[in-house]
């Protein structure tokens, strides 16, 4: 015991995170991209839907797009919508999915069986189809409708993963010990089970965010955006893809932004997952 008494006390999770290169790098880049999305519109040389010249011209840094709008300005305006919708949708999907998965795993028995079979039915639909079914019924969907739809389409996939992770934890003795003490079921889930799932769940969240951006972009392509005229990284790729050979920047610029953002968020999630895993063993 003397040896441990001399050892320095545990640094907090935040302190440890700040020492991890992977996390720090991902975190910094994520912040930069978010800052760009928020503040860049203030400095954009042209307005969001302002025409700057002929289509696919070389004017400005990145040239113009299919209707002659300045690509740089569109890029600067187009971050907010995509990021906000996909981050919110991911959060919603994660919360719903974790809830379903953990309750099913912890409840066990017929509850688990019924919940997971219903979940399987939802899983059978391609992710984008669920959203399309509702969106075709609405003429001009509000942004929150898209958030809810994408979030809901993530939920069954997240539920599968979190149920798998939770199954390995609910059978451990410390959960049984909490049961034996007569802890409330909700507290067992929140205080005993969830904290031990952080690692895999963060990795899943990173992956889901990438998917969200993809789905938002795809919906935009199909004409289901909150505002069809507004700039949006996802939509930009689809609008300009025909001119890829003549004006590659109109597509490449938003692609690069999305790539940088997803890589950064995934690095961040990965770093956190590694950190939270290290304490175990």
């Amino acid at each position, binding site marked *: 015991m003397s040896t441990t*008494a001399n050892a320095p006390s545990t640094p907090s999770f935040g302190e440890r995170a700040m020492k991890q290169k992977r996390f720090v790098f991902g975190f910094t880049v994520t912040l930069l991209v978010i800052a760009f999305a928020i503040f860049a519109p203030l400095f954009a040389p042209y307005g969001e839907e302002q025409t700057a010249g002929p289509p696919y011209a070389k004017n400005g840094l990145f040239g113009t797009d299919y209707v002659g709008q300045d690509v740089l300005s569109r890029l600067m305006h187009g971050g907010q919508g995509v990021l906000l919708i996909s981050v919110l949708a991911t959060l919603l999907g994660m919360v719903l999915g974790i809830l379903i998965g953990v309750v099913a795993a912890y409840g066990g028995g017929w509850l688990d069986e019924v919940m997971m079979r219903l979940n399987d039915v939802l899983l059978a639909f391609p992710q984008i189809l669920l959203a399309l079914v509702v969106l075709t019924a609405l003429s001009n969907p509000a942004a929150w409708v898209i958030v809810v739809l994408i979030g809901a389409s993530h939920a069954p996939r997240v539920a599968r993963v979190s149920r798998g992770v939770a199954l390995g934890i609910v059978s451990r003795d410390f959960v049984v010990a909490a049961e034996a003490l007569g802890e409330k079921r909700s507290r067992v889930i929140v*205080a005993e089970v969830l904290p031990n799932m952080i690692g895999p769940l963060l990795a899943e969240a990173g992956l889901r965010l990438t998917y969200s951006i993809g789905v938002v972009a795809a919906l935009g392509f199909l004409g289901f955006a909150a505002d069809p005229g507004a700039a949006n990284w996802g939509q930009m790729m689809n609008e300009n893809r025909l001119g890829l050979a003549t004006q590659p920047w109109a597509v490449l610029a938003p692609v690069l932004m999305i790539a940088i953002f997803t890589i950064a968020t995934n690095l961040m999630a990965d770093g956190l997952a590694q950190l939270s895993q290290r304490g175990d063993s």
Partner: protein
Amino acid sequence: MTATTRDVQQTPTPSGGLVIEDLGVTLTGRPVDVVDDIDLVLRPGEVVGLVGESGSGKTTVGTSLLAYSRAGALISSGKVLLEGRDVLKLPWREVRQLRGEEIAYVPQDPASALNPSIRIGKQLVELQELRGIGTAESRLQAAREGLTEVGLPNDTEFLRRYAHQLSGGQVQRVALAMSFLPKPKVLVLDEPTTGLDVTTQKMVLDTMAQLCRDHGVSALYVTHDLAVVANIADRVAVMYAGQIAELGPKDTIFANPSHPYTRALLDSIPHLSQARDVKGIPGRTPAPGMRPGGCRFNDRCAHAIDECRQQVPPLITVAPDHEVRCIRVDEIGTWDIQRGTIPDADPDRKRDIILSVEGLDIFYGRKQIVHDVTFDLAKGEVVALVGESGSGKTTISRSVGGLHKDWTGTVAFEGRELANSARKRSAEDRRRIQYIFQNPYLSLNPRLTIEQIIKRPMELFGIAKGKQATDRVLELMEQVALGSAMLRYQASRLSGGERQRVAIARALAAEPDVMICDEITSALDVSVQGSIVALLEGLRKQRGISMIFVTHNLALVRSIAARVQILQEGRVVEAGSVVEVMERPREEYTRKLLSDSPRIA
């Protein structure tokens, strides 16, 4: 018999067997010794026991014999001589050849050594194909013979089984058969019986000893349990913190242990023949890089003087074949194996029943596991439930504790019947009966701090909260001998023994009247077991807590319990006071359990 053959073969320059000279293993990257200065000779046909606590480097020495070190460590110096060849200097192709064929290894967990998707027979045949032994026709025959040798059935049905269709003892014997098939000269066994119950352990040990004798194989038997070594080894090497502390013939080690560490280890072992005031060794084995200067045992040694802290003592030869690494070996007096024995628990003590179990039948689904079990527990008394694995002892304790709810019968606490599951019992009943789990690595939430873990029952049962609760936590931690510095540690930073103390403190935080202890020491080193047992005994005396103590270790029962229930296949076969049952067992099964248990004195 072994003694005579050894005398004949023993020559000044050892030709057979294995010689380890000045072996050292360091961590890669940091100049930190894992083990150093290991000199050991395995004579042909001899079994050498290598004993130490976890973290002493005993497994590292064991695998070094096969020129293997785990990732992050490196064999940095020394020689391992097999018939004059240095195993550590051989090119890797030859080392590969040598592993298994000349030096075989039996791992701690045999289940992970057998391929779960290949049938037993196929694995035995495949091994011979790989080693180029025999012909296509003879291999199956050899596999059958190998199984016969280890006392397993050799019919086609058995050969067609998968590893998961065998019991733990059978798997371990298949692993033994596999290691003997290529007819190795040296065998390294790494705690092969840890986790097996006494009957199976005895069977595996006997098989191993027989095979070594028949084939003239030298064996290094790595274990933390001196009691096991007492039954099979010819010589014993006691390791501490990466060095050999004492080396000598088995009888010398047990009759005249000369290193304070060896004595402390022996003090922590319960005896089968008499109750004993077992003690642990204070502190814990220092990890590589944290070891003190001078004699490495100096910070835990009762005899340490300033000189002990100055330089690492050399191994001193105190008698032929008997070496000790202690500079005070002549000053610390003699030792007696009977030291610390105490009178057995009084069988005629007046009993004031607090918990009674009547006609308990327990089911898993449709299958009945436990049949009509009846026993009771008095205030301030320890009742032991003893049996092999699968005898239902843990199932009974879980049902009484309300963790398993599929049972019928009566469990009455102070005359009131208890509900089947803990959730249906009153908060007061839940508080007064506390359960402690077998594996402290699973029973504490790795995310929570020690403070949060111990405080929770107090908050839940309204015993204390806030600052007052923290003070209580510190008090409890002191009682279970944990330093207050650990208050904010996460459970994942503690060793097994420390975790089990936290689990005990958590149980005590609820101020219980009954504690159900489910094999709480079986995952721990014997020295740690000693200190846990001493702790429980203190609690019983001071607070009058009653305990149901589940175990397969009869020697432990003798030292801790007053009454015992012997279980076999879910039924009580014999019950009564510990002295009565252990001195005059009436049932054949009890006698067998007693004779299978390893004995020291």
